[in-house]
C-alpha cells in the first residue's frame, strides 16, 4: 500500500525530474507509477465491472430463459381454466377480464376498489376471472391464496377475496405468517373450520395455486396486478378510468 505514491509527489516528480534521485526521497522506487499501473486499483475496478457484467448476464439469461408466450387469443386456455374462479359471468362471455393478482400486493389492493366498481357497473356484461399469482417477496401472499382457495372449496371464494383485500393493510408486509389471521377470517365468514383447516394446507390446494401461477408465468406475467381483457394484456395502469375505457372499447368492438 505504501508503494502507491501520493498524487502530489507524482506531480512534483513530474515537474522536477532531478529530485527523483535525491536521497531525501527515501529508498529508490524506480519510476513513479501512474494510476493505471496501480495493480490494486485496477483489480478493484475490474472486480466491480465483472460483478456488474455478471449481474447483467444473469438478468438477460433469466429474462430469456423463461419462454413466456403472450396469449394466442381470447380463448387461450391458459387465461381461464375450467376451475378458475369466475366472480361474474356475462351472457355469452363477450368480454372477459382476467386478473392475475397477489392478495398482499399493494397495487392489487389499490386496483381492487376500481375493479369492484367496474364489476357492479357492468354486472352481467363482463366476465371477471381471478387467477392467483403470489409473489415470492410477499411472506403471506401464498398463505392468502391458499386461504382463498380453501374458502373456494366451500363456495365462498368471493367472500374471502373481498375480506383479504379489505384487511390487506392489517396483515400486509409482515415477515411472519398470518395463516392464523386468515383462519380467523374464515371463521368470521362462517366456514366449516374443520374442513377449512384441512383444505388450507392440502397438497391439491397448493397445487391449484401453483397451476395459476405457472399459467401466469407462461403468459408473460411478471408482476401484479396483470389484467388480460379478451386475451390482450392491459398495459395502462389499472385505474378505474383506464379499466372502464378498455371494457367499453371491448364491448363496442363485440357488439
Amino acid at each position, binding site marked *: 500500500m505504501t508503494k502507491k505514491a501520493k498524487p502530489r509527489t507524482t506531480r512534483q516528480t513530474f515537474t522536477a525530474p532531478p529530485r527523483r534521485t535525491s536521497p531525501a526521497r527515501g529508498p529508490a522506487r524506480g519510476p513513479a507509477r501512474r494510476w493505471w499501473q496501480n495493480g490494486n486499483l485496477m483489480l478493484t475496478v475490474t*472486480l466491480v465491472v465483472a*460483478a456488474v457484467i455478471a449481474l447483467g448476464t444473469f438478468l438477460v439469461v433469466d429474462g430469456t430463459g423463461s419462454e413466456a408466450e403472450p396469449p394466442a387469443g381470447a380463448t387461450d386456455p391458459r387465461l381461464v381454466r375450467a376451475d378458475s374462479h369466475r366472480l361474474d359471468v356475462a351472457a355469452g362471455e363477450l368480454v372477459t377480464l382476467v386478473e392475475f393478482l397477489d392478495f398482499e400486493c399493494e397495487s392489487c389492493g389499490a386496483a381492487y376498489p376500481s375493479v369492484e366498481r367496474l364489476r357492479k357497473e357492468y354486472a352481467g356484461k363482463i366476465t371477471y376471472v381471478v387467477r392467483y399469482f403470489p409473489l415470492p*417477496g410477499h411472506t403471506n401472499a401464498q398463505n392468502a391464496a391458499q386461504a382463498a382457495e380453501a374458502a373456494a372449496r366451500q363456495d365462498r371464494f368471493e367472500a374471502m377475496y373481498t375480506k383479504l383485500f379489505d384487511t390487506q393493510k392489517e396483515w400486509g*408486509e409482515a415477515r411472519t405468517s398470518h395463516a392464523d389471521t386468515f383462519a380467523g377470517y374464515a371463521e368470521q365468514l362462517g366456514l366449516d373450520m374443520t374442513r377449512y383447516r384441512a383444505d388450507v394446507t392440502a397438497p391439491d390446494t397448493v397445487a391449484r395455486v401453483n397451476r395459476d401461477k405457472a399459467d401466469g408465468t407462461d403468459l408473460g406475467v411478471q408482476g401484479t396486478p396483470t389484467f388480460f381483457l379478451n386475451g390482450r394484456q392491459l398495459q395502462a395502469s389499472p385505474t378505474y378510468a383506464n379499466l372502464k375505457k378498455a371494457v367499453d372499447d371491448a364491448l363496442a368492438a363485440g357488439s
Partner: protein
Amino acid sequence: MPVRRLGWLLTVAGTLGLVAAFVLTVEKIRLLQDPAYRPTCSINPILSCGSIMTSDQADVFGFPNPLLGLVGFTVVATTGVAVLAGALLPRWWWLGLQAGAVLGVVFVHWLFVQSVYRIGALCPYCMGVWVVTIAVFWYVTLHNLGGRPIVDAVARFHSTILTAWLLVLVALIGVEFWDFWRTLL
C-alpha cells in the same frame, strides 16, 4: 496505508456509521411511541427497516442494537480525527480499537445472516453500518499487523480484497432475493 490516510478513513467511516446508528435510534424511538409508525427506510417488502427493527434480533443484548453503534462509531470517528490532528496514538490504543473492530465485524456478519436468512428483509441504514464496520475492521487490522511481509503483500491489494468481501455479501443478497429483484424491473 499511511497512518494519515487511515485517519481519514476512520473519520469518514466513523461519521457515516454514527449517522446511521443515530437515525436507527431515532426511528426505533418513534416506532416505540407509535407502533403504527412507518420508518423512513421501509420502502418495500424487502427494503424494510420496520420488520428488522421489530425483530428479536434487534435487541440481542436486551437493548436496541444501534446504541452500540452510537458509542462504537463515536470512538472510531474520534480516533480518526485525533490521527488527522497529528496525535501519535500508543500501541495499546490501536489494539483496543482492534478489539472493538473484531467484535463489530463478527456482530455485523451475524446480523447479515439474521437479516437475509431469518427475517428475510434488508434495512438500508443497517447495510450502511455493515459496510463501514467491515471497512474499519479491514484497515485497522492491516495497520496493526503491518510490517510483516505477508501482511504487506496482502495490503498491496487492500481495496481489491475489501471489494471482493463486500461483493460476496451483495451476491448472497442477490441470490436470496433474486425473484423479488426481478419483479422490480
